[in-house]
């Protein structure tokens, strides 16, 4: 009951809890865990009872053992760090460029007419198709991976920022004009706060694609990184390692997504939209 009482007191609730959706508390979390836990337990029992040898679909105990081994010899943390650095650099480049060009295209119709058709054309290219070119241009090592991730991040951020700037309420902009704001002051005091919620969403969408593309980048050739564990697991026929890598990606993806949400939450407390007060991140 104390959990519910706390969710009533919206302003006093710490923003980070709202951002990660902890408001309805442990109860909801456990409900969400029920199906995966039940499936895992059932499979574990099935393998234990000899109904399957679990070679291609490893039971949870073998995945844990795999984790323990990877963790124990320090491999797991090394691979995670390598992958995180790749995503961070690729995301930084892609989100930076997407923000800049998206803001320019949204703010000035001339810029939009100039660059938007080209970018929309490039967007139509499935991003994986760039891989051979990037490898030829940038080599097979890190730079081409950064570039691929950046391309993946760029488009959702660009589109999100441009759309957000274009859809800022004209009436709110007029308030700015009535107070004689123009140029930079208008951007800082009206446009920037107005686009912030949509911008955070765009960044989160971009980050999701960044994680997708880091897998592709590492899959196309890498000697380390969580994606490399996938290849290794495939080549040495170790499904437990593949599943461990998959789970690692899931956890990393969710954690970094929550990180953005948490950082943004204090700036978005004012939001008045469906979902903004339901603790849904």
């Amino acid at each position: 009951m104390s959990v519910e009482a706390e969710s009533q007191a919206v302003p006093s609730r710490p923003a980070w809890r709202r951002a990660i959706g902890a408001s309805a508390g442990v109860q909801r979390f456990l409900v969400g865990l029920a199906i995966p836990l039940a499936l895992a337990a059932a499979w574990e029992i099935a393998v234990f009872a000899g109904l399957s040898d679990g070679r291609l679909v490893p039971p949870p105990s073998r995945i844990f053992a795999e984790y323990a081994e990877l963790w124990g010899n320090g491999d797991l943390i090394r691979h995670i760090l390598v992958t995180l650095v790749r995503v961070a650099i690729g995301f930084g480049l892609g989100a930076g460029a997407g923000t800049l060009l998206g803001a320019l295209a949204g703010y000035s119709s001339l810029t939009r007419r100039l660059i938007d058709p080209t970018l929309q054309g490039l967007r139509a290219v499935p991003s994986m198709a760039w891989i051979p070119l990037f490898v030829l241009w940038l080599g097979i090592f890190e730079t081409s991976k950064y570039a691929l991730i950046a391309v993946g991040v760029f488009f959702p951020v660009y589109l999100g920022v441009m759309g957000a700037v274009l859809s800022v309420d004209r009436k709110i902009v007029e308030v700015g004009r009535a107070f004689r704001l123009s140029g930079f002051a208008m951007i800082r005091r009206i446009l920037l706060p107005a686009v912030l919620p949509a911008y955070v969403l765009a960044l989160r969408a971009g980050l999701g694609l960044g994680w997708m593309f880091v897998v592709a980048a590492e899959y196309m050739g890498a000697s380390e990184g969580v994606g490399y564990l996938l290849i290794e697991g495939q080549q040495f026929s170790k499904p437990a390692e593949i599943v461990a890598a998959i789970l690692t990606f899931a956890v990393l993806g969710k954690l970094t997504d929550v990180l953005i949400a948490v950082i943004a939450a204090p700036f978005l407390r004012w939001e008045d939209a469906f979902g903004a007060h339901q603790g849904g991140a």
Partner: protein
Amino acid sequence: MLALQNVGKTYPNGVRALDGFTLTVAPGEIVAIVGGSGCGKSTLLRAVSGLDRSSVGTVTLDGEPITAPHEKIGIVFQEPRLLPWLSVAGNVGFGLEGWPKPERNGRVKAQLDRVGLADKATVWPRELSGGQAQRVAIARAFVTRPEVLLLDEPFSALDAFTRADLQDHLLDVWADQKPTLVIVTHDVDEALVLADRVIVMRARPGRLYEEIAIELDRPRDRQSAAFDFAKRRVLAALDRSLDRRATSDDAETKTSAGAALWW
């Protein structure tokens, strides 16, 4: 003094929204502008505010031409248009950016007191009712102490009780600083409660049709015979502006129908 000289506005699609509008408003005077829809009331207000420019004619404030938003001219829109990411106090102080903090806070607080929302200073706009939000919008416009305040149907979205309440609030705040008020309204009662002068406009093209001076003492009693008489004069003028047959002579019977129908 606010002076409009032969102001006209033709939109790019050829619509003449406003034509040859001439009016001078004395400092501290309250002018209400009424008229049927499409008579150019809002166009007029936007030209005075500097948000839009007139096609012909000039708007001047104390001799200074107004072609862009001016610090001495404030505006309250039909909707509160509060900035949702600022607290109520932040919204009220929006026009005081760059002021020393103590002075700014003092003014904001005083203005919020004046509209009866001192206890709401720290809440978000989303937590306000429609009437409260519009009071914040009024406070935001008054806090910079404009010489002229324009109000574009400011209370039209509110229920009758809230509207009467806000009209009183508006007169209270006006009494402090005595700025010139130009208020566009659909509501004849509102015009009569507030204004020293009611301007009736006529549509296609929008132009000044009739001026009616309201010489009633404030606070005005909405039930008094004098109020009723003034109301009939305005309604009759509105009927004539819309080419209804009612004249001021037989207004007695016809305006009741007109009153219900003129907008």
